[in-house]
């Protein structure tokens, strides 16, 4: 693998700039086409499933696709949902690029969210310019430690990170529920005897400012966009980023080149966790203003879809998050509008993953497509 990319580099540098650009554009277009193909195929299967379930797929998709774009509410809500997706997705990009798969987004989100809420409640009276950065940093640190555990287990004891992150998700969920039902529960819920498992409302000064009045669109979006650029610079313009990608491209070769593979594996997982933890804090400070049950709502998994759909590129993850955010919102609107359960969108995202990872083979071996097409044509 490493050898091939080396040759490719030499090859590209020998070509004149123009040809290089054309090649780049062509592969870019190819990637886009394959991604759109994957999405369409997933939606088509979704439609067939709906039809089998005796629901009208056209009516469902009409609501799902026009809803998010037909009103100010729809557009801003799409952005609200894209924000945590982008943050989680950025962490996924870092970890996948470093060759370690972070499936623990759900748990890391909760770790970040509960840390953010607890800290903001303890430091009630602190001024916003100090408190907000502190809360965000603490949440990122909480997520980083939760992810770092899996990274450490992988690097030191070669425990499969997929399995450990899945287990850590369950553990984080239970601890989270315990905290918001017990020690951190809103005193008012206890006083009124309602007992809804959620923390008290956070002090007003830590709430993120709203970007559009009378909507839920908050400043977290800007933070996420800035971080996307930062992650791009980090991965492609710094030595640490280069080493992490080298570990991802081939750990044996990286070790041979003198890179401390174990360290970068742990770092990759900690960074992935930090971004997910940040996503949890952003949901708390920007949307709910408290930690409550069902806070994550699958963002840890949908973030993987966003990252994969963004071709594991920090900037590509931006439009991908918008798309997945719109899909999730559209599904919610579909549930309310034509009462088709929003669980549908999880199935579609699963199919999108399956199609995207399946179509990778077409990008790796483009000759396969040219070989398959005439064969298919001949059969007809």
């Amino acid at each position: 693998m490493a050898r091939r990319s080396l040759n490719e580099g030499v090859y590209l540098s020998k070509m004149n700039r123009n040809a290089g650009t054309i090649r780049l554009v062509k592969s870019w277009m190819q990637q886009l086409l394959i991604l759109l193909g994957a999405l369409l195929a997933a939606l088509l299967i979704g439609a067939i499933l709906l039809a089998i379930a005796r629901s009208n797929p056209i009516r469902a998709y009409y609501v799902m696709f026009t809803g998010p774009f037909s009103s100010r509410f729809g557009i801003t809500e799409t952005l609200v949902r894209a924000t945590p997706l982008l943050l989680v997705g950025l962490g996924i990009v870092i970890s996948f690029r470093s060759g370690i798969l972070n499936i623990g987004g759900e748990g890391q989100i909760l770790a970040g969210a509960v840390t953010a809420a607890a800290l903001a409640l303890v430091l009630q009276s602190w001024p916003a310019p100090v408190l907000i950065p502190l809360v965000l940093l603490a949440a990122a640190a909480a997520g980083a430690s939760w992810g770092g555990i899996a990274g450490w287990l992988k690097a030191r004891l070669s425990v499969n990170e997929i399995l450990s992150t899945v287990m850590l998700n369950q553990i984080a969920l239970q601890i989270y529920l315990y905290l918001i039902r017990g020690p951190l529960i809103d005193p008012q819920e206890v006083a009124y005897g309602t007992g809804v498992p959620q923390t008290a409302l956070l002090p007003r000064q830590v709430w993120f400012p709203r970007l559009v009045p009378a909507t839920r669109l908050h400043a977290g979006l800007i933070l996420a966009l800035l971080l996307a650029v930062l992650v791009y610079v980090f991965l492609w313009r710094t030595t640490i980023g280069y080493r992490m990608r080298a570990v991802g491209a081939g750990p044996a070769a990286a070790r041979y080149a003198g890179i401390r593979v174990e360290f970068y594996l742990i770092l990759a997982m900690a960074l992935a966790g930090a971004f997910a933890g940040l996503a949890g804090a952003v949901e708390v400070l920007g949307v709910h203003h408290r930690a409550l049950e069902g806070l994550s709502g699958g963002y840890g998994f949908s973030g993987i879809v966003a990252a994969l759909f963004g071709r594991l590129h920090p900037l590509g993850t931006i439009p991908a998050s918008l798309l997945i955010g719109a899909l999730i919102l559209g599904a919610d609107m579909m549930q309310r509008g034509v009462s088709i359960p929003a669980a549908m969108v999880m199935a579609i995202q699963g199919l999108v993953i399956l199609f995207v990872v399946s179509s990778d083979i077409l990008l790796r071996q483009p000759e396969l497509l040219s070989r398959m097409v005439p064969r298919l044509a001949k059969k007809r």
Partner: protein
Amino acid sequence: MEHIIQQGLLVGVLATGVRLATPFLLAALGEMFAQRSGVFNLGIEGIMMMGAFFGFLVTFFTGNPYFGLGSSLIVGFLMGLLMALVSVTLKAEQGISGIGLYMFGWGLSGLLFRLYVGGITSIPGLGPLHLPVLSDIPHIGSILFNHNWIVYLAYLLVPVAWFVLFKTPWGLRVRAVGTTPEAADTLGVSVNAVRYQALIVGGVLAGLAGAYLTIGQANMYADNITAGRGFIAVALVYFGRWNPWGILAGSLLFSMADSFQLWVQVMGITFPYELAVVLPYVTTILALAVSVGRVWTPAALGRPFDRGSRG
């Protein structure tokens, strides 16, 4: 008096533990074949959800748990086939495709459940199979011989899986394509065909494990009824070192921890129950940490087979 309570508790923990091991055993033994053939199927959880749901749905409509069971097996077969198509033929990255399969199974079962059923509804399930003499032995009878037949089947599958894997030509082929696929290919074994078969066996067993949860245990369906059991089953395969007996030991260790945590809740011991629920997951991570690393793994695990330019 206290002595009797303690004895009752012990019998309760053990009997529940023996029962709770069933879905882990079924799913993990199936996953063992898939991993032995070189494919890491993380989608087991999704397959179990589909198996659990379709078993429930068909029983709900027909009133016959055996029809439900049959449909779970069919759904498991199809999901295994889908995973094989994606991971074997299309050579997708297996960890990620498994997550895709999981989300697909989760979303689809959730969608159909809300469309067709909507709420908690109970269905007729499989009752315990009363074995003459054996079931009536005090204590031991209720620990070992007072379960429905899927439980016995799961335990019976341990030696069967061992025999199939190590003593039959097919088992040899499965092990061959999982360790040295190139050599197996040279000897005329179709690597991809064997991997398809192993994934389908895994899918069917995961479907059965799901069916056990709805038809055999709860007699109802609820969202996320599998609660990560499929993922734990995958971990148990690592813990059991790709060997049926090791998987049996892991499943029992795990289900006893789970049973203990359930009985702690039932006995009303003042302990935050969320922290008790965590116990089995912590056990799994610790078990993985102490067992993985120094041991043998199928050499070609996670590596799609490419015959090279001949295609």
